[in-house]
């Protein structure tokens, strides 16, 4: 097997794409974000419930798309559940660096998310990996209600 492929599609990623975690509806969500990547047709619906201090009490998603977008969403929800607003934003920036910056060392705080670093060798797939993160960013901004976010701003 080809090393770049194995680095991109690590077993953890394939596993999360086949059996996404936190996949489903969140009936009492505060905010629902529909995210899409029109270039690829990836879609996710992200539902977030906040705790009293504005942290992520619960987070779930549904969606369809490539292995990268769905695994990224699954891994993200696992990582962000229970995190404060500041921690989420910090993680968002660290993750963006991880999948775009070729020289950067992966910060330890990203934990499992570091399996996504293979994306950096595939610039066209960065949007797939970032889709769920764009949605959570929008959820924080919006706070309540419904929102739409796209990797191709109109």
């Amino acid at each position, binding site marked *: 097997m080809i090393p770049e*492929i194995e680095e991109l599609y690590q077993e953890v990623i394939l596993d999360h794409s086949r059996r996404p975690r936190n996949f489903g509806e969140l009936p009492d969500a505060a905010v629902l974000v529909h995210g899409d990547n029109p270039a*690829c047709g990836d879609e996710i619906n992200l539902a977030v419930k906040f705790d009293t201090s504005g942290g992520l009490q619960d987070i779930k998603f549904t969606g369809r798309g490539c292995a990268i977008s769905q695994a990224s969403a699954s891994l993200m929800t696992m990582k962000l559940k229970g995190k404060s607003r500041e921690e989420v934003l910090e993680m968002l920036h660290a993750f963006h660096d991880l999948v775009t910056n070729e020289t950067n060392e992966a910060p330890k705080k990203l934990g499992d998310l570091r399996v996504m670093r293979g994306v950096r060798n*595939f610039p066209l797939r960065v949007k797939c990996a970032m889709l769920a993160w764009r949605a959570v960013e929008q959820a924080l901004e919006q706070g309540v209600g419904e929102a739409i976010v796209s990797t191709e701003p109109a």
Partner: protein
Amino acid sequence: MHKIAASTIDWDAVRGDFPILRERAHGHPLIYLDSAATSQKPRAVIEALRNFYEHENANVHRGLHTLSTRATEAYEKARRRVAEYIGAASADEIVFTRGTTESINLVAQAWGGKFIRQGDVILLTVMEHHSNLVPWQLLAERTGARLRFVPVLDDGTLDLDQLSSLLTPEVKLFAFTHISNSLGTINPVANLCAKAHAVGVLALVDAAQSVGHLPINVRELGCDFLAFSGHKMCGPTGIGALYARAEILDSMPPYHGGGEMIVSVTLEKTTFKKAPHRFEAGTPNVAGAIGLAAAIDYLEQIGRPAIFEHDSQLARYAAERLTELPGTRVFGPTDERGALVGFVMDAAHPHDLTTFADQYGLAMRGGHHCNQPLMRRFGVSGTTRASFYFYNTMEEIDRMIEILQAAVRFFS
């Protein structure tokens, strides 16, 4: 020099005319199955561009010096060559454009702007590329016209039974693709044009996927407009053409304003040149037109009947082999198809498949192929598309199948 009948053509020698096919990708020999996006260029075309810039380059239609005369002659000769190639009655019916997209936009703006009124209908099909949809949406928005669509059946062909009820008196234009860029469907152009004309409707054909692959004669097809790109038929990017029947082209107002398209200009008013020059404001893509003519010369040496026979054989073989793969759905007609095949596999999303394949040197396209409404019609967000040209081989298709089998094992 290559011979006429497909069986006597040395396809290996033809393949040798394309320097880029000796490239490697990720350490593997390149297998280029994305010619529906853009074709590769033979040495003859690359040399024609080089020759133009080394020996003839000057602006056209204005200088009186030697090079300008050469450039103008070469440019107008290219226009005659395009006219012959598609069977137009005269070179005056050929407008050089940047490609299919600009050709269709030109019709929508110049012809549509003048002749389309509120309540008129433009008839399209569900299988149109965005380039033959969005310009009409923009026109409809400007004028209050409406769009109407011929449905696509499950086998990827048009629902022709509906055509007569869709061709009502409000319809002014029927614009449709010759070959679907996602399904490979070859539409019965002559029949569709005849049906449109029978009720006084003009017909526009998007020939982007057909003009480099099979013989086309606009007078036999009976179309009023034909749009195509040079880059999908061995020519350079940034050049294409619009054919429009002379009397229609003459009736159309200018599209862009500027130099090159005028007879005389005062500060208040301008008299425009006749067609086709009226539609070519500014310095045209002279080198591109000359490269396109070289591509036509090259294709005609091989012969379009032979190209079509070879191409469609590759596509049928690929479709057959793909159906052998587990969990694979192949789109489009099963009998005759253009030189491409779209498919989806349960094992992996099109983008994962194409990323995987690329690591083995195999270039395919994954996504919606500028066909989002058609993708929706078939309930998928995208497909993987392998598209072929006469320089591809059966062995490359066998290799594609091996790589896809490896992908199924990897992703399942």
